[in-house]
């Protein structure tokens, strides 16, 4: 366990974060953008847990932040999917460029 330092796990979570950012910038479909947001939130959770494990192992704060992030991500995904389904009903598309009624 001592062989792998905190840097390696933070490297992995950084790569995961920027993959999520790339997906968020390039995808134009709402569901795939939501998937990118889930990847970003996961990388943040991984950071919290690894910092708690390696640097502040006399506290549990990272674990609590991870638990609350997972809970709020579930709520956020449910609301986003309700909005997407409602949007699909009125526009027949979930492409983000097509739904521009509020834009102008």
């Amino acid at each position, binding site marked *: 366990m001592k062989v792998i330092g905190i*840097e390696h796990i933070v490297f992995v979570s950084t790569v995961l974060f*920027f*993959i999520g950012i790339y997906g968020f910038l390039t995808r134009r479909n709402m569901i*795939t953008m939501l998937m990118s947001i889930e990847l970003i939130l996961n990388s943040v959770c*991984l950071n919290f847990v690894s910092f*708690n494990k390696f640097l502040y192992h*006399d506290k549990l704060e990272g674990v609590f932040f991870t638990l609350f992030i997972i809970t709020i991500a579930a709520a956020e995904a449910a609301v986003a*999917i309700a909005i997407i389904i409602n949007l699909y009903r009125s526009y027949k598309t979930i492409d983000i460029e097509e739904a521009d009624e509020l834009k102008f």
Partner: protein
Amino acid sequence: MDISVIIFYIISVVITGGALLAVTSKQIFRAAVYLIFSLLGVASMYFYLENNFIAAVQIVVYVGGIVVLIIFSIFLTQNSGHRLKKPDGKRVFFSALSVLSALLLTLNVIGNYNFKSNSNNTIEPEIKNIGMQMLSTTQYGYLLPFEVVSFLLLAAMIGCIVIALKRN
């Protein structure tokens, strides 16, 4: 080479490879399946870090809840064999450029930073310790955020029903 190092690299490859395929796959259903692999990789990384409770929550909420929700919404909004529109080349180029430069900068900063721990005793992240601190009302207890999150979940549930309700 130590076996735990090999396991760590396998988990890392699963996480990053699944995420990369999830954001670049042309078929949206395949992207959701690759997302499952990435999330399971994150869960196994929690197991690797000996945070069993967080790993269980990750599997139950993400893989069992959110991905199933995403797959249902894919089925409800488009036919699953349908190929996604190709993003235009200029956007892909500039996104990849900015993401790569930010990634290299961040990796450089992390590689040069000297992480050191100055805490001595250890609290094991067991369910008992987590539950005791989560529901304690004393200092550093998390009862109030717990209640706030429960209200947030209730509000999100009612909001979803109201938004997705079919109007006639």
